[in-house]
């Protein structure tokens, strides 16, 4: 067990400060492979749930890691690196939506297409469709908060918003999703 694993989960600001103080060494291929195997699946799922398109998720996953490697990452803290990758993925997803809008394609319409694939069960389709009805920012907020367990500070950093706004934005996103679930009779 590494020393990092024994350290309890610190608040984001403290974790960032710890990461800055920790001795840094450049990431080599072996370290990258370990980090990639730990994070790539989660990042792919996040992008896929945000965009609803597996091909787009593949593409954006690669772009995310290219961008990550371009910054010549240094190993200080895995949490910090993971957070950085999520932030990069979020930016790329929002860029993708902007690009789609520019080409007059409704990004949300892409979701049911992917969800209608025969291997998708009806429940999965309903869930994907419901999630797609949220705004992209709401999707990112809910996923980062409820699935990735990110703090408000981390979410604010990833979405480029003020930390104090996250609580309100998260409340609105929950209410929006709650309304959709009630209307569709999908509430657990």
């Amino acid at each position, binding site marked *: 067990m590494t020393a990092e694993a024994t350290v309890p989960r610190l608040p984001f600001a403290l974790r960032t400060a710890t990461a800055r103080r920790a001795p840094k060494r450049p990431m080599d291929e072996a370290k990258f492979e370990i980090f990639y195997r730990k994070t790539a699946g989660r990042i792919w799922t996040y992008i896929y749930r945000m965009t609803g398109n597996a091909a787009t998720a593949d593409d954006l996953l690669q772009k995310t890691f290219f961008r990550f*490697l371009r910054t010549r990452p240094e190993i200080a803290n895995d949490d910090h690196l993971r957070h950085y990758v999520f932030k990069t993925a979020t930016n790329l997803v929002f860029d993708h939506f902007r690009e789609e809008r520019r080409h007059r394609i409704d990004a949300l319409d892409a979701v049911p297409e992917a969800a209608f694939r025969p291997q998708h069960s009806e429940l*999965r389709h309903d869930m994907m469709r419901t999630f797609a009805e949220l705004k992209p920012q709401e999707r990112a907020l*809910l*996923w980062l908060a409820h699935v990735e367990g990110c703090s408000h500070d981390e979410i604010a950093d990833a979405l480029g918003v003020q930390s104090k706004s996250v609580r309100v934005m998260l409340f609105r996103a929950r209410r929006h999703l709650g309304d959709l679930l009630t209307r569709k009779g999908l509430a657990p």
Partner: protein
Amino acid sequence: MSDLERDPLEVKVDEWMQQFARIDDRPRTLPDPSTLWVRAKLMQSAVAAERANRPITNAQIGAYLIVAAGWAAVLMWKWQALAAWLRSFTPAHIVLGAAGAEAAASLSISLVLVLIVLASVTVMLAFYTVLAEE
């Protein structure tokens, strides 16, 4: 905080999100990390090469501008002399004989030298551009 103390909406959304997250729709194979690593390194090399070439590219652009400005200046200031000299090569002047020779003689040595230098630099620059692109 237990679920009882939490906002019911938060609990409902959290449960749904957990259920949603459990759906496994990941591809069987994610891109290979070694391939990503190599491609990222190649991209970094390409970016570094481009950065190293930037001063050369800037010098090239500067040379194009200087040569263009030189030609523009010579043509503007000595246009009448050059036009007269060029007219001396028209068939009418050649047939009439001596008039062409007078016009050609009117070009000063310094102007001829400037024209030779500018033409040489232009040809060298063109060769360099073609060879660099190849």
